[in-house]
């Protein structure tokens, strides 16, 4: 777990630092909005409790189909 954070935090931190230094605030927000969900998914994988995307999609589709009564 420590190795995981030791890889990811400096990687993301370094890019954010570089972008902030160039005052590219929109780029910082966009970078974080894409990489943080990836970080979250990786955290689940490292903890051996991954969020299975197709299962989530199937649940959402079941819920929608229930709402429309089919």
């Amino acid at each position: 777990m420590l190795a995981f954070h030791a890889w990811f935090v400096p990687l993301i931190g370094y890019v954010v630092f570089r972008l902030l230094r160039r005052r590219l605030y929109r780029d910082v927000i966009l970078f974080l909005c894409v990489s943080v969900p990836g970080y979250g998914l990786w955290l689940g994988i490292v903890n051996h409790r991954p969020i299975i995307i197709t299962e989530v999609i199937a649940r959402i589709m079941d819920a929608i189909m229930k709402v429309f009564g089919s």
Partner: protein
Amino acid sequence: MISRWQFTLLINNFLLGTTLFVSIQALIQQTQQHAWIIPLWNGCLGLIVSVLWILLMRAHPGKTLAQILQEVWSRPVGTAIALLYFFHFSSIAGWVLHNMSDFMNGTIMRDTPKSVFHIMFLIVACYTVAQGAEGMARLNQLVTPFLFLPFWFVLLLAASINWNWERFLPVYPNEGWSSLFGNFAMLGYPFMETIALTMLYPYVKRSPGRAMVWGIGMAAVSISAILFMIIGLMGVERASRLTFPVYTVVQEVDIGETIVNVQSIISVVLLILIFIKLQVLIYGAHNVLQQMFRPKTQWPHLLALTILVSALAVSIYENGVQNGEFIKQYLNLYFSFYGFFLPSLLLLSTWLKNAYRRRNHGNQRRGR
């Protein structure tokens, strides 16, 4: 700008991508010796859906799908739906990577961790995407002859040894033709995935619509021909029990103990096809971000995409059984939402908007 031929080849290779690993075995299991008809039938339906995309793109010349969303449904709603497309392209990229690593672990490199393949492919794909659409199309055009010729040469070599026409008997299915034409196993995957190529549509020099139709048609015929070869070479019983029938067909080629181990050719061809599919998907996802939020830099976002897609690749599905169940139960409906429902709604909104504008314009003229 991309030429029409380059776009056709890109669509063809995109569609062949992972199809040769994933759907073949299940399709043969379902439809037996008539499996080769399904790609042709579903390809025809895919062509009808692609006409919808072509009409949409023609109504908004020079604009990609993401830009059309913003133009028709206003900036906030358009951005929200474009983000759904971003997730869709990213998740298909994850899927493609997971399929590829399954193939690698199952055949050549059994002990290498899946993420090693994912990250290596993603880095190269991001580099290609950073070079732009032209670079991608040229690369694809350059490698296609090196994929097409060895692939068919190796399959024909196998056919020269093991071919048996009796494997196609009986010709008429027991349940009748209606069961065959009621089968839409290949409509969602791979034909509706082609929506990702609408992100490249405005960069095609002349008649991109025709190129799209040709590309889908060529891919349908190619997939059908490959299925035909597999059935003729292996028979239904064997092909439906193997995980990667294309690979096994070629693995068994042994001519005078001189032409052996030709499966490595097929592996390289399949890996390049997957890479082409991956780079188109990454290009689609990256361009949605670029066009929605207009960032000043490119590489940080490609890095973020690598982090996200490499995580999606590991967690997209748990195992082959769960993936198979999802494909059987939900995939057509899920891909129809992105490939048919949203584009139809978008086209309808465009027509209504244009009609309203024309009416208003007419009223203003009469008022004067």
